[in-house]
């Protein structure tokens, strides 16, 4: 086939994908800056005729939305902190020590994907209710730790495995004790992987909706996802402009983290699976 024709077709396909993936985002962005008059008119404009920030002020003044944002950040940060502290030693062992534990560990991460979350949340709901942690951020943190920990362990052990063991042996021969070897030689090499894993955990918790929906009942405890979902449900049809602005603002942390994670998601995380 003609070379230029192939190139043209390839670019056409690429632009098709760009529009499919990008248009909904542009539309959300554009709606967030439109005046309510423009949104309610039947005219469909890709760009706002007279861009306004009124939707953002309306969204921020909307009762509870800022509070929900705080709740989301608290839950995601505490979850990430706990999960990271627990995963580092666990992942180190999974990567460095062959044996049943590792097989069971990785096996569980994969098998746990098959089970619908409903089978975990029903018993957890009873357990949390008996200790008074339903409808509390602490209860949600506990559930998020459990929910993100297996994946964090698995992702991190991949990074540990990619650090040559020779480094540790060389350190031991030089007489440094195990702890110092880990702290001075292994940890600096692990740091980028650790940051990536922590960011991934943060986004998983921050974006999570199902557990939050089940556990949180009073509006002052809502996370952003739950708060936003009540705005679209039958109970509270909200003006589209402020909803778009709120949705846009609430995506910012995840989008930034993912942009930073980009290279690692493409590389480190998956090459193991490919080379396997």
């Amino acid at each position, binding site marked *: 086939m003609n070379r230029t024709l192939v190139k043209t077709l390839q670019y056409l396909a690429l632009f098709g994908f760009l529009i499919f993936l990008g248009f909904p985002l542009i539309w959300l962005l554009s709606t967030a800056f439109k005046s309510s008059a423009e949104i309610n008119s039947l005219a469909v404009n890709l760009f706002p005729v007279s861009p306004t920030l009124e939707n953002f002020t309306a969204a921020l003044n909307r009762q509870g939305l800022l509070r929900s944002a705080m709740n989301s950040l608290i839950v995601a940060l505490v979850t990430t902190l706990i999960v990271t502290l627990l995963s580092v030693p666990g992942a180190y062992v999974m990567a460095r020590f062959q044996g049943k534990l590792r097989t069971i560990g990785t096996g569980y991460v994969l098998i746990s994907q098959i089970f619908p979350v409903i089978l975990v949340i029903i018993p957890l709901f009873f357990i949390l209710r008996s200790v008074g942690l339903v409808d509390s951020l602490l209860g949600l943190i506990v559930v998020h730790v459990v929910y993100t920990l297996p994946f964090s362990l698995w992702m991190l052990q991949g990074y540990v495995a*990619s650090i040559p063991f020779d480094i540790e042996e060389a350190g031991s021969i030089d007489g440094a004790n195990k702890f110092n070897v880990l702290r001075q030689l292994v940890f600096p090499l692990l740091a980028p992987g650790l940051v990536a894993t922590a960011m991934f955990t943060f986004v998983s918790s921050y974006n999570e909706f199902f557990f939050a929906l089940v556990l949180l009942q009073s509006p002052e405890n809502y996370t952003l996802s739950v708060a936003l979902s009540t705005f679209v449900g039958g109970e509270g049809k909200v003006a589209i402009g402020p909803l778009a602005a709120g949705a846009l603002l609430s995506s910012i942390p995840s989008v930034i983290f993912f942009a930073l994670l980009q290279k690692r998601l493409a590389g480190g995380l998956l090459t193991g699976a*490919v080379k396997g």
Partner: protein
Amino acid sequence: MTALRPQRAHNPPPKPRAGGLARARRNEAAALVIPALIPVVLLSVIPLLIGIGMAFTDSTLARNHETSFVGLQNFINLGSDSLFWQSFGIGIIWSVSVTVLQFLGGLSLALLLNSDLKFKGLTRLLALMPWAMPPVVVAIMWQMIYSPTNGPLNWLIGTLGGPERINWLGDFSLALPAVILVGVWVGMPQNTITLLAGLQQVPAELSEAAAVDGAGAWSRFKHVTFPAIKPVIISITSLSFIWNFNSFGIVYVMTEGGPGGRTMLPMLFTYLEAFKSRHTGSAAAMGDVIVLFLIVILVAYLWRQLRGERIPK
């Protein structure tokens, strides 16, 4: 999330040595792993087992209810629950369509990103956005796209001379295809990134050698690229199928299972059974049925795909 096969260590981990040293190492390992193990076992493994077992009880959310063992009663009731099976069928249509379309879209995009075109950086970044955004925001965004009164999709169709005021999410026959498209949009990043990583591992020389031998583009793909990325394809399609079958948030926010149950995915159905109807026992039975179904499907799929392909170690 992307859980594929575990990464192999680049160099072999230490072999356990004989005697006291090995025991000391083992104790050290146990001390390191236990802090992570306790919450997983206590709050994930045990609840999961309880959850599976609850299917055999008449458990409800009511506070002063004495739960008792009812044997297979929940499963017998489920057998004649036509709404559940209808939802199950919708789940299969949703899962198969979304998985297949995600894969085809992801593979095409990955092939484009793996060739020497411009705008690759932009496309890659854009292709990640659906993965990054909170599912609730995705649902809200697509509701705006599908809006019957002033949505851009209806505007486009109207401008092209098509019917006006199509109620995408409210129409009995359109609602499921409409949410399937959103499912494809959301899941394409994982597929694209995973397949792209796979493609980048295929040595370019192989394809070049085939080209020198006169193989066309399609023949090169079929005989060189495809066999090389087949393990990746199997991993990503199996995982996508599971994730899609168990998916909840996007469809819940967009349609709540409506109109008339046409988008009632199995997870929405079990959620409503457990936390709206408060029948946790029968909801657990539904969960068990879903797990069994997924295991059967996966075993059949993986067995067919992997048979005879295991490389001896």
